[in-house]
């Protein structure tokens, strides 16, 4: 059973035209900048929003098709939804919350409660089933929410940034558990993800949504190999510049700076550059690099075992250096350094 959506929807300033397909045994991560329309997409699939044109379907069942007037309301779609915030029913115990779905579907009270307890256990909630939602931590609340979504035995699972309301200390554990539950789920899964780590950990495939359009899809490695936009570059930690190529020279958009690259191209291109390929020097370096300019350190951010250095200059770039280099070069906000990049380090993609 494949979840397919090919639709147009206008909502305020947002103009969505999306073609999306989630296979029966696959987890797709939907990523994109704020306001790109990710949550709206989720609302369309869940049945909270009706589309203007196109079709939303799950296997043979058509859920929404304005041309034929067909619209299946959310209660009849059989999708499990987990939102950013837990949105638990505060007047019910956690057991009551998880049993809500089965009860709504006509399962007798005792059986619904037993099912709720089983799902709470399976999702790692070891609390008293009578606990009120208000007493839960963010991570526990999201586990209960997941149990609630799974207990109604949905055909498809939709998660909207399920980790964003969880504090950093609980995030890693919950991400791992979530990955296990998603893999074990029999049916299409769609996760709106906030960052590359979540997307890579939870999903088989990443779909990038920008300004209401799908701009790129693939695995994280595929996206990193050829980032299709500045956003994707940021997502995978790369520098990405838009520009106009003329042979091996690329004029960077929004300035006079020219990059010398190693591949021939003409017209509009995107140039990607790994932060580790950016070399920093205290004085103007002699020798082979073709791209050299003076820059000012804007920010220094530790990142795992490396340090990311944001640099202002004719072309703003992020460099990744060792902590040792930070001391050696005296890298701190306002410091002046020389940037050098080899022409062969740029990956040029025509647009």
């Amino acid at each position, binding site marked *: 059973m494949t979840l397919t959506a090919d639709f147009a929807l206008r909502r305020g300033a947002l103009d969505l035209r999306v073609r999306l397909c989630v296979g029966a045994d696959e987890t797709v991560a939907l990523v994109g900048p704020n306001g790109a329309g990710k949550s709206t997409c989720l609302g369309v699939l869940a049945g909270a929003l009706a589309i203007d044109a196109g079709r939303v379907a799950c296997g043979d069942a058509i859920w929404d098709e304005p041309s034929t007037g067909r619209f299946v*309301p959310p209660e009849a779609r*059989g999708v499990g939804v987990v939102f950013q915030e837990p949105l638990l029913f505060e007047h019910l115990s956690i057991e009551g919350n998880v049993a809500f779905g089965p009860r709504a579907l006509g399962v007798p009270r005792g059986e619904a409660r037993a099912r709720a307890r089983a799902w709470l256990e399976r999702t790692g909630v070891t609390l008293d089933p009578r606990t009120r939602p208000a007493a839960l931590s963010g991570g526990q609340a999201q586990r209960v929410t997941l149990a609630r979504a799974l207990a109604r035995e*949905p055909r498809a699972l939709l998660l909207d940034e399920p980790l964003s309301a969880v504090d950093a200390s609980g995030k890693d554990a919950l991400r791992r558990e979530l990955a296990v539950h998603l893999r074990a789920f029999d049916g299409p899964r769609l996760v709106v993800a906030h960052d590359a780590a979540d997307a890579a950990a939870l999903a088989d495939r990443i779909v990038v949504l920008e300004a209401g359009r799908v701009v790129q899809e693939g695995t994280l490695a595929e996206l990193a190999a050829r980032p299709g936009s500045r956003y994707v570059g940021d997502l995978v930690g790369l520098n990405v510049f838009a520009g106009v190529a003329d042979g091996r020279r690329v004029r960077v958009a929004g300035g006079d700076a020219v990059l010398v690259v190693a591949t021939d191209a003409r017209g509009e291109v995107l140039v990607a550059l790994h932060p580790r390929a950016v070399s920093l020097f205290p004085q103007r370096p002699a020798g082979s690099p073709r791209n050299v300019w003076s820059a000012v350190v804007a920010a220094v951010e530790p990142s795992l075992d490396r340090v990311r250095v944001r640099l202002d200059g004719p072309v703003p770039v992020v460099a990744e250096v060792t902590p040792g280099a930070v001391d050696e070069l005296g890298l701190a906000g306002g410091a002046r350094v020389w940037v050098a990049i080899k022409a062969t380090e740029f990956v040029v993609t025509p647009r």
Partner: protein
Amino acid sequence: MTRVGRSFPRGLAPLAVLAGLFLLAPLAGLLARVPWADLLERLASDAVLDALVLSLQSSLAAALLVVVLGLPLAAWLASGRSSLRAVVRVLVTLPMVLPPVVGGVALLLAFGRSGLVGEPLARLFGVQFTFAFAGVVVAATYVALPFFVLTAESGLRGLDARLPTVAATLGASPWRVFTRVTLPAVAPALGAGLVLAWARALGEFGATITFAGNLEGATRTMPLAVHTALESDPEAAIVLSLLMVAVSAGLLFALRRRWFVGATTR
């Protein structure tokens, strides 16, 4: 513990104290004139008890009607934005801002014996509102309805729209979502609206005396009894007033947690 962000500029203190004193003065004036010696005897008189029972019965009946009629209306008003809703909201708010006596005149012209609705009702079903308990309830419902509808609507509008959506995705029908999720979630707002509406119904005077009349034992509620006694027996009026203050304050105190959400310590 003093909370940051809840500070109180001292310059406001004199006016705040003045406001408190202003609210206290009428109560003090009333208490100073209470005939304490024969208070119990006067309270136990038939006229007083009749008025009290009638007031409680009619205001509770009105409160019930207000919920039965007002909740569906509030739910519809909260369910979207349209010009029709804006018009209906004006209609709902009208009894709140109209002088009650004008409401009474309007009710008389609609539900009176020769009124637009009252005439057929009387002819077909023998229903009569003038000088009848039903009239008292109708008048109280008319003036109290806006308090409940507007409070309930604002509560329903404040509800996170994703909560009903979650319930729907769990397989709940719209009716089940409304009764099992929406209503419990907005219960504090409904409670507050109910208290406001009930208090308004209990204090109703102008519309009642104009529409239902002032007949002892039938339509003479506490406020009407106070008004009537003021001319013939001022001490009786004071006793009745004291009783109303006691009943109102008692109920407000009992319901304080529901009404002043966040203002009381648990």
